[in-house]
């Protein structure tokens, strides 16, 4: 068991709390760098997807997990990022410009969506974002001169400063690099006053505003940042898939993105990455499990059942998600043999309506 004696306030906001973390994150970094030489092409492709979904998951985690605003419309930001990238690349813009534009445009759309969010709470916000998602999907389908409608758009390989990223490895390094940047960005935001304001808003809007936090400003910032990250994820997604069409950005996709956050563990950056890995590997696991089942079971139905069951099981049995499970295991060994079941118990509260008659 490790005891960290804090003698200075700045110790609280250090990037790494102790030497062990530096070591293990170093090992992870080396493994990530060496991955193209260690694993097969298929696994590498899955790793690219995990990185892309991690970026999106991190964006959503900031909004849902840290600011406490529910969004069922993040597929729309994904679509904005993906289509911006596709159109600007077709127009001959360099990748750096198109990626930045994808992030900025998504952020701008995020601010527009964030505006009603200032007045809406809880489920009304979820439904407003969900309505927004449907509208964006329909606009993409109908605006054929720009987006190609249902025929979709094709993308070419990325070119950075004259160097073509046509190989699997180079694209993998780009994805990993951007994921690391996204993580560092969020860590920095979260340990700054802005991040503290987000958490305060999540925990109680009333007390946050009493402490002098401008709710409207910080909620908008949170929406914009979250949308920008999702837009970057969308741009990478578009390149990874190579072909984008409106049916990739439906409400179902939005729900899947929220599932990343829930399964990973609400309120932890680790959770976003773990959840992304889980969601990417799930179809793989299901198709392996399919071999043991009779042939009469339709694959689409099976996927839907397993997905639903996992979601429900996580919420009921492991509300802190994969990262929470890891924390519990670690604590168990840290304090062995003194672990108590009640350590991580959540508080139940009696429901009280805020509606007045």
């Amino acid at each position, binding site marked *: 068991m490790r005891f960290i004696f804090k003698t200075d306030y700045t110790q609280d906001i250090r990037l790494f709390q102790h030497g062990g973390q530096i070591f293990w994150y170093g090992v992870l970094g080396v493994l990530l760098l060496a991955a193209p030489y260690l694993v097969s092409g298929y696994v590498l492709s899955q790793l690219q997807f995990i990185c892309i979904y991690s970026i999106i998951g991190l964006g959503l985690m900031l909004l849902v997990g840290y600011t406490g605003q529910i969004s069922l419309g993040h597929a729309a930001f994904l679509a904005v990022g993906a289509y911006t990238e596709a159109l600007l690349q077709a127009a001959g813009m360099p990748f750096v410009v198109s990626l930045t534009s994808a992030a900025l445009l998504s952020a701008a759309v995020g601010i527009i969506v964030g505006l009603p969010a200032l007045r809406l709470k809880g489920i009304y916000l979820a439904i407003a974002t969900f309505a927004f998602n449907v509208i964006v999907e329909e606009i993409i389908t109908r605006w054929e001169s720009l987006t190609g409608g249902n025929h979709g758009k094709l993308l070419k390989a990325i070119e950075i400063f004259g160097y073509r990223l046509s190989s699997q490895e180079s694209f993998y390094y780009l994805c990993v690099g951007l994921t690391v940047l996204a993580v560092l960005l969020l860590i920095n935001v979260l340990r700054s006053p802005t991040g503290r304001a987000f958490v305060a808003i999540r925990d109680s809007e009333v007390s946050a505003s009493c402490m002098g936090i401008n709710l409207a400003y910080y909620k908008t910032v949170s929406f914009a940042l979250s949308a920008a990250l999702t837009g970057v994820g969308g741009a990478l997604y578009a390149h990874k898939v190579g072909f984008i069409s409106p049916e990739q950005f439906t409400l179902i996709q939005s729900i899947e993105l929220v599932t990343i956050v829930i399964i990973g563990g609400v309120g932890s950056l680790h959770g976003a990455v773990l959840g992304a890995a889980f969601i990417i590997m799930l179809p793989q696991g299901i198709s392996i499990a399919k071999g043991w089942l009779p042939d009469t079971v339709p694959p689409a139905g099976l996927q839907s059942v397993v997905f639903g069951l996992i979601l429900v099981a996580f919420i*009921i049995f492991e509300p802190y998600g994969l990262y929470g499970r890891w924390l519990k295991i670690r604590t168990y060994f840290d304090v062995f043999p003194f672990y108590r079941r009640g350590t991580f118990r959540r508080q139940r509260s009696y429901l009280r309506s805020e509606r007045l008659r």
Partner: protein
Amino acid sequence: MFSQFLQLTLAGVAQGCVYALVALGFVLIYKATETVNFAQGDLMMLGAFFGLTAGTILGWPYWATILFAIVVMAVVGMGIERVVIRPVLGYPTFTVVMITIGVGYVLRGVVTMIPGWGTETYALKTPFGDGVIRFGGAVLATEQLATIALTAALCLVLYLFFRFAKLGVAMQATSQNQLAAYYMGIPVQRVNMLIWGLAAAVAAFGGILLAPVAFVHSNMGFIGLKAFPAAVVGGFGSVPGAVVGGLIIGVVEALAGFYLPEGFKDVAAYVVVLVVLLFMPSGIFGETIRKKV
């Protein structure tokens, strides 16, 4: 010109009634538990499949079909509450919302696995015939008229239930303050279970009414997504609101489909809900929300 408008409005009203029925299910659960049941559309789909089994496969008469679907679905609804909702009682509402989304996935998948249901599309016959009634230049199919009449009847019953019945009042009390409801001797957990049963039964009713219009298949639950706007426009937590919201969405959709360019029909409902939320954050009939610390 006017008769055309009337015709469209009537068609919209009939369609709106179906939205209203699904929205009623949302409202029922919201009223009692302050959560939104995203699986409502899928419960409706399941109800329609039970109706199909009784009516087409077993060959029962129409009234028996409805009764069968309602009873079975009420049991299914109570079962869902007991198994997955009760363990998270007292946790934040978004938790429950995500659970209902998961339940929706499971229901949709399970239906495709059951032999005799599967991924096919079925039609359900009704005894209302295919006659039409002329109505000042517009025509209304008897099926649509039956839908409107049955919805109206159901709404009246539910309204009276919440206004006068002891259980209905208990449900409202539970929603407003669980702890106080406990103190007043209301068995909160049992009330929650009953309300899930009631909502599932209403969903089954809606599914059977919708079946002649939309056919029965495993994805028909997605119509529930149109019913959200209906419930929001009317204001969650208000039975008359759900009906008014459903009718508004239905009529707007029918008119937008005819007078506006292609594509507006599908998003009309969502545009309406965004506009309403922008000006009335808790819907037309919504109660005042005031945060107390």
